């Protein structure tokens, strides 16, 4: 029974983690395609080096932005919760 419970919990956990990673990947692709592929031409290879450099940096920056936003948002939510508790 306990093993089956753990199995259910692990499945839920990994489904949500997968959905989160996919959403991050989708957003990154969307933003970086918009930034680095302004005029879609026949292949990435014409100015391929410039493109892949842009995409690679954009990926790193988007992950950095996501981490920064997480940090600031979670800090703020915690602060607001403390304020609420103090004001009761």
């Amino acid at each position, binding site marked *: *029974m306990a093993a*089956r*419970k753990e199995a*259910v*919990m692990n499945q*839920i*956990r990994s489904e*949500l983690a997968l*959905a*989160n990673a996919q*959403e*991050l990947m989708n*957003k990154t692709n969307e*933003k*970086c395609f918009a*930034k*680095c592929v302004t005029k879609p031409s026949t292949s990435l290879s014409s100015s391929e080096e410039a493109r892949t450099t*842009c995409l690679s*940096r*954009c990926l*790193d*920056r*988007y992950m*950095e*932005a*996501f981490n*920064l*936003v*997480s940090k*600031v*948002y*979670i800090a*703020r*939510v915690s602060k*607001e919760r403390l304020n609420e508790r103090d004001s009761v």
Partner: protein
Amino acid sequence: MADKFDEATQKELSQFVETEQAQARLHQSIHTFTSMCWDKCITGTPSTRFSRSEESCLANCVDRFLDTSLFMVKQIEHQREQARYQ
């Protein structure tokens, strides 16, 4: 199909699901903020690091958006109270 979980386990599982759903909503908010603040703050071509102004814009963007939300809620409450005493 296997036997159903007993009542205590069902309760534990439903609490677990609730916590995980709250976590998922938190992540969703972070995705939304990252997307919105990226569009607002990162206007140039991506470089090897954020400029100082980009980085502070991203951090401030989240805080100013939450300030905005709180301000709006207070404003609506204020208007409702005024309407009540008229």
